[in-house]
């Protein structure tokens, strides 16, 4: 009774299509920002700790740096915080914390509670800088090289795997900057 097997065959064909399509879903997720390979947008923002001080991305030209988007409202930021702290200690490059769409008091209380992992703080209350950066959500981590070009963007919390990947990329950027 071959015809009884036909439904099974059709089903297996469908499954095949879905199986081979799954990796492309992953790729689509990875193809993140059109800004990769382009210069980091120039913006000037107040410091979180002292609102009279402002920083701008242009000041950082000439050395690689890390930009980490976070908010006190973001649970995943808590999850990734130990890795961000370690990144700040081991990467040996400036590390900007871009506090996104947050209340200053909340953000300060958060740093008080979980620790300050960043060497430089920026506040983006309106979220305009984040829009220019093409930020999807927090947390996100950008790697920018010494020429001010965005080299990599990590979406989502940094974990053990992505930490190693980020460290390798940072080492590469430091070498490029040195040569």
């Amino acid at each position, binding site marked *: 009774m071959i015809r009884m097997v036909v439904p099974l065959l059709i089903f297996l064909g469908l*499954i095949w*299509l879905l199986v081979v*399509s799954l*990796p492309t*879903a992953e790729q689509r997720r990875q193809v993140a920002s059109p800004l990769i390979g382009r210069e980091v947008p120039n913006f000037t923002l107040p410091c979180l700790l002292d609102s009279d001080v402002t920083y701008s991305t242009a000041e950082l030209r000439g050395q690689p740096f890390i930009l980490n988007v976070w908010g006190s409202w973001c649970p995943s930021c*808590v999850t990734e915080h130990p890795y961000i702290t370690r990144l700040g200690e081991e990467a040996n490059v400036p590390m900007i914390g871009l506090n996104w769409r947050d209340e200053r008091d909340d953000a300060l209380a958060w740093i008080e509670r979980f620790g300050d992992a960043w060497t430089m703080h920026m506040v983006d209350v309106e979220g305009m800088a984040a829009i220019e950066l093409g930020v999807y959500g927090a947390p996100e981590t950008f790697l920018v090289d010494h020429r001010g070009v965005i080299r990599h963007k990590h979406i989502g919390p940094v974990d053990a795997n992505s930490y190693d990947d980020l460290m390798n990329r940072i080492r590469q950027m430091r070498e490029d900057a040195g040569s």
Partner: protein
Amino acid sequence: MIAEFGQISLILALILAALLATVPLWGAYRNNQAMMNLAPSLVVGHFVFLLAAFVSLATLFVRHDFTVVNVAINSNLLLPWYYRLVATWGSHEGSLLMWMLILGSWMLAVALLSRRVLPNYFMARVLAVMGMISVGFLLFTILTSNPFDRILPGPADGQDLNPLLQDWAMIIHPPMLYMGYVGMSVAFAFAIAGLLSGRMQRDWVRWSRPWTLGAWAFLSAGIMLGSWWAYYELGWGGWWFWDPVENASFIPWLIATALIHAQAVTEKRGAFPAWTILLSIAAFSTVLLGTFIVRSGVLTSVHAFAVDPERGVFILSYMVLVTGAALALYAVRAPRVMTGQGFGYVSRESTLLVNNVFMTVAAGMVILGTLYPLLIDLMGWGQISVGPPYFSVMFILMMIPIVALMPLGPFTRWGQDDIKRVVSPLTVSFIAAIVAGTAIAALLGALNVRAISGWIGGLWLILGALTFLWHQKKAARRLRLTGGQTGMILAHAGVGVFVIGVAMVESMTYERTVRFAPGDTREVAGYNWHLEEIASVKGKNWIAEEGRFVVYRGDREITRLNPQQRLYHRGQQVMTQVALRPGFTRDLYIAMGEPLSDGTGAWSIRIQIHPFVRWIWFGAFMVTLGALTAASDKRYWKPYRATDESPAGSEGAQPA
């Protein structure tokens, strides 16, 4: 502690489900009554623990326990308690938990309501198959999507539930939809139990019918609510978008529609039994396919963040196991399925066959359109999406023969009938539908092909259903309809109402974007729209700019409409809140656009008139009601007697 309690409940439910999936099945195989009788108790325990887990999560939400990741991500301190409750099933993890609770409820319902209807061995098999399904989902939840995951220390406040979901329709839409989805597993379990029972009899189809009808009713209601919600909440005024997520719910609906009609044939005449089994398997399998589409992210790449390939792999493996095993069993056992009586070209069987062919093909077309972008992407032919026109064209094409033939079905006799005898009682309805349909469309100024054919088709269905009612009355002197007949009349007339609504909305919707400054009065679509002022208003967790509109017809005030542009505090998200005035023949629908930068305080405002849009949902509601009425037909609930055309002897001499 509550989170841990919920976690433990989940694990206990898993253990009970695993026992349920094995012990009664073994009992049915070895004809061990004690083991078979264990099934209902296991089902009760399984349900209780799932309920405990669900209540735990709901409690965590209500009590703002932000140390639980799921709570922290989906609710905050400002969210009112009822939306916190909604948030319980607003997330992937929570909705899975609800899915399982509903599966547990269906199992409980089968165990209780079909207690006297089903023979012991059959009940044991049905519940065991559903137990297997539950094991898969519980493993999925515990391994990949645990709703009770902690984050320590927790944040002081959580995030927000998506404002789009902060709506009362969201309170009942997902549960309804899941009732429908999960209910398909009952039909699936009955079919598998039937296959396992060796010699296939007609019995199992009769036992399965009320459950399939019930699940189909919930599925219809769930889809209808979703469409209604999209209409007033998304602010576009559309009622159906043919996007993958909608299609994911529509494909099982089409298959299930074919199934409930196929079941009628198999139950009454024993014809195409193998096909009915196949449809039962397909209905639940397409539910799994939909789950995969929605939760794996292969298609809605837009929803990138919930994409978790691990989940996709899990669901896919689960599908391979469930559907693969079912189809393999089918391949082995279906040849043994008994065949029914033959039938003539003009017969009830033929009309239902036509229904089945078109419904299944329509489902196939929707699957094709939904998955085609994957195929194209795979071949490297570029990134495409399939436009709604494809679905509309195909769907209308498939529905024309169904609408044309639907009223004939109930008048046709089983086995062999004569075309003249079938057609003659409907001649009047047919002519009346054409004349009245054209006249009404002309009166409404809707002289286009879609509106006219919509009115003719819709009236044809409604009058056809009424003619059937009248005919029954004439034949029996005193009108006595079975639940099945009443349900059928209601549902078929409901499709007619639906068809009219769709045809009018699709052909006659009026839309205009206009500039409004406070104090302006403009005539749009025969109404005078006056903007009194634009005010700032404040809600519990949002602030808004609100347009205060008064709508006049001539000089008579019809209604006041206050559309808003809302800003939700927490995430500072902007949302358009439309204002609408529902009506029997039309909805007035207005949405705020953006402030214009010409310094006059003017806004761009979109006004839409949706004619007969309520008929879409009212028709669907009638269909739902019809299905529930049919499910309550006494015939399905007769207690089981071992002598009923069942396998010789009884549960005792069961070949496994």
